[in-house]
């Protein structure tokens, strides 16, 4: 299957996020690799996703799960070779799967040769590639992001006897984008991968590229200028490739990263994500409606990316203090579940393994405007291990079957890069791809059907959204429209059955057709349309006028 030529393909994408290390080990060293991943591409194609987002696979000391990069233009030997990656890329493209990779522009590992050079001497040509200071008092008041582990954004370098700036871990010094050489170096790296054929980049930590005294050192105009330049070159030399922004900000602040359609193609809608979880717990649509009401329109050629969980903690940075406390109390009662300003748990455990809630949240993910991202393992309801350090509890090996090492590796279990989830609820013996493939009612089968339905109608990926606001606040209902295509989505956020009257008089005469069973429902008339929904139930209706 050849890749479709469409410069707006990312609007129709369904992204599957994974780390190559977690997916499949082909050589028995206990670590997933590109050969193994290539072997599993059929699975991703079968699932219905059409884009793979790979977490960092570069050489790295792995002190931040690969986001501390020591060499940008090759593959960590644990994951294979550059040729293995090329083979994977070709195989993916042959199956119609696009590939996004990480590009960490903001910082490198302190083991990167650039930093090793920069710190070696104040006169080194690469000295100015990083942000140095003789004191730690510059940029006062700038927030610390990894509050659990870092006390300052400055760290003393004993080698060059000065401080260097880092917005993340102290072993991740920030690059200095005030130096044009840095930009050009990063562009060369991007070209390296673009020439190989990757379909785009997730740019990590973009709000922090530039620092200025007296500011928050986030979202500065100079940062946007850098992004614009990247985009300009991309459009000129690599049309159809995509940039995805990781900017954990309020929607109005993320808006700037779309520019006038001349910066990022896509950006994560971080604030929506916790509010989906909140809405289900509160049994109230208010958090979702409120954040989307204050989400500004974006250029026509841009798209939000929406998600439920990912490799990081479920971030609670972009919520109020009250909302954060509520989320902690409801979803992370055990403080071990909390890290930084977030919750390090997977989707299924957060939903208490309630199939109905898992389906409801995935239904929201697939029906709300934006490109959805599925985190690996969530399609089968994988569990987590909160006792692993950092965020590693949500990065355990993929569970393929109930056999040795869950089919992930033939190495000795002790050699696996991470212990498997093996408890009686989420353990690989119970939750795995093979067993779920056997049954049409499994979560995996259901996800396939959901994705297939979503893929069948472009209105989900490109249509407008209008909230209906029935008086029953436990029901979230909206209309998606694209040309003549109209879809009514109705979600019961509550644990109890609900009745709702929908104001659909403007669609009088339309016949709602439930999209999974394809059954007809009574035609819309003059009166409010009465629906009843079971606990956590949702409907997708295609509206036909015949």
């Amino acid at each position, binding site marked *: 299957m050849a890749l479709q030529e469409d410069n707006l393909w990312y609007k129709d994408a369904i992204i599957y996020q994974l780390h190559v290390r977690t997916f499949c080990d082909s050589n028995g060293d206990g670590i997933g690799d590109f050969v193994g991943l290539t072997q599993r591409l059929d699975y991703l194609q079968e699932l219905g996703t059409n884009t793979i987002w790979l977490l960092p696979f570069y050489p790295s000391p792995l002190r931040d799960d690969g986001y501390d990069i020591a060499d940008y233009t090759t593959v960590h030997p644990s994951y294979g070779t550059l040729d293995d990656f090329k083979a994977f890329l070709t195989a993916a493209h042959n199956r119609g799967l696009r590939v996004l990779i990480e590009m960490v522009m903001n910082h490198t590992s302190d083991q990167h040769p650039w930093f090793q050079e920069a710190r070696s001497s104040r006169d080194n040509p690469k000295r100015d590639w990083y942000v140095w200071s003789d004191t730690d008092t510059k940029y006062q008041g700038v927030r610390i992001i990894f509050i659990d582990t870092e006390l300052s954004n400055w760290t003393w370098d004993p080698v060059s006897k000065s401080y260097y700036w880092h917005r993340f871990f102290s072993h991740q010094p920030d690059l200095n984008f005030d130096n044009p050489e840095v930009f050009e170096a990063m562009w060369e790296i991007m070209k390296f991968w673009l020439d190989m054929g990757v379909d785009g980049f997730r740019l990590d930590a973009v709000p922090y590229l530039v620092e200025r005294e007296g500011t928050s050192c986030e979202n500065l105009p100079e940062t946007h200028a850098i992004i614009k330049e990247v985009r300009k070159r991309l459009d000129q030399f690599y049309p159809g490739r995509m940039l995805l922004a990781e900017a954990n900000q309020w929607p109005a602040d993320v808006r700037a990263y779309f520019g006038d359609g001349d910066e990022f193609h896509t950006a994560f809608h971080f604030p929506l994500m916790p509010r989906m979880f909140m809405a289900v717990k509160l049994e109230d649509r208010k958090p979702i409606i409120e954040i989307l009401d204050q989400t500004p329109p974006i250029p026509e050629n841009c798209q939000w990316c929406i998600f439920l969980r990912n490799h990081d903690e479920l971030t609670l940075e972009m919520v109020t203090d*009250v909302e954060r406390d509520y989320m902690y109390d409801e979803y992370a009662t055990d403080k071990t579940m909390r890290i930084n300003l977030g919750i390090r748990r997977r989707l299924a455990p957060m939903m208490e393994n309630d199939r109905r809630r898992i389906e409801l949240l995935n239904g929201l993910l697939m029906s709300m405007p934006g490109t959805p991202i599925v985190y690996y393992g969530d399609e089968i309801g994988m569990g987590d291990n909160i006792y692993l350090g950092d965020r590693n509890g949500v990065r355990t090996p993929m569970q393929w079957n109930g056999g040795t090492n869950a089919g992930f590796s033939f190495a000795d279990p002790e050699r696996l890069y991470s212990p498997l989830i093996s408890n009686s609820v989420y353990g690989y013996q119970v939750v795995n791809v093979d067993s779920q493939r056997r049954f049409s009612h499994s979560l995996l089968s259901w996800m396939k059907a959901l994705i297939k339905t979503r893929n069948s109608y472009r209105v989900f990926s490109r249509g407008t959204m209008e909230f209906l*606001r029935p008086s029953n*606040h436990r029901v979230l209902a909206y209309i998606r429209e694209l040309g003549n295509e109209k879809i009514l989505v109705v979600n019961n956020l509550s644990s109890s059955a609900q009745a709702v009257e929908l104001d659909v008089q403007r669609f009088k005469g339309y016949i709602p057709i439930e999209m999974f069973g394809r059954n007809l429902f009574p035609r819309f008339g003059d009166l409010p349309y009465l629906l009843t929904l079971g606990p956590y139930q949702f409907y997708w209706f295609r509206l036909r006028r015949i």
Partner: protein
Amino acid sequence: MADETFLSDDLLRQLMSVGEVDLLVGILSHRSANTVRRAAHYVEKSLQQNFVRQRVAIISVDGGAVEDSGSEDHSGDGQPGNNSNSKGITSLRTIHRVTAAFNGAPSPGLALRTILSASDLLRARGCAVVSPATSSTSPEWVANLLRPAFRDSFDFVAPLYSRHKFQGLLARNLLYPMTRALFGRRIRELYSDEWAFSNRLGNFCLNEDVWHEEPVRSRPEAWMGISALTSDFRCCQVYLGEKPPPPDGAGPDLVEVLRQTVGSLFWLLETHQQAWLERKGSEPLPTFGPDHAVTAESMELNRARMFEMFQTGVKELGPILESILSPETLASIQGIATLDQHSFRFPPELWVTMLYEFAASYHHSVINRDHLVQALVPLYRGKIYSFLTEFSEASASDMEAVSENLCMEFERQKPYLTEKWKAGIEVKS
């Protein structure tokens, strides 16, 4: 379960949309839609600040001033929460506003019954009833009322205020001391526009077959309070702050006030006699916040006509008073009515005796009960005139001592009332 047949379809539909709540606040009918709207805004603010995670609803019982109803949060001023990162997000949950609309202002009894029904159908754990006039004083007002019912398992929560020494004279000279002496509980503000109650008490009251009775129609809060005090319900008082004066010209005249308050008090004595006849002494109620306070700043008073009306009333109502009062009591009252206004005093002992004879006569229906209560009006004026004259320069602490002495007098003479209550009385035609 509530008899909800008197609830309109529209109200029922609104309640269905709300679902179960933890807290319900009822705003009683008022003349001005703007006032109700403002009150709802302050109530909402209070709920947002103090009951962040609870499911809450506000019900306006409205006689013609129709509010927007619906489930969305319509925070009045759109101010963001205290958190500088709040980005305009003011509350965790939807705060529901429900309107129960009537054609014309409903009676307080019907309004309360509507609120009780809503509370029952919504399964609210705690409910407060507030007045538009007072609930806009501060957001803490409503929260202070609700907390004891919601968090501390109290069933009835009465307000306490800081009042000027010459405010609330009816309560100070009659309603409070008489209720205290007879029912044995020191509840200061039984006749108030705001109070709170638990789901348990609400259900109890809703199922009582008294809603057609005039005292319940006009002053349902007193009936609810007495029902709580005389049954197995936990009662308390909570300090709310300074009682704002009513808007100029607002409220019924004195005759109507006495009909509603004293009339309902006498009716309550009648209906709850098993609870008070044998009770002795009085006990304080658990109180949250500082106890009530009395302020004594100077205040202009117009009492010129009061004494005249007292004298005129005593003279013209002589035959009626003969039916109500004992000869000795009547003679004493006629005696003080001949004093000049500078030396006039209405002794507390006489005041209490007179009131108890009124109560007993009400019980025995010696004359039409409504006429009986109205006959009290000029006598009350005389008492108040005496009070204002005697204590115009008194300090706040002096006033408290005076009030306490009056209360003790009521308690001391209770056996007299009991005796007259139980005795047969010849009904004079």
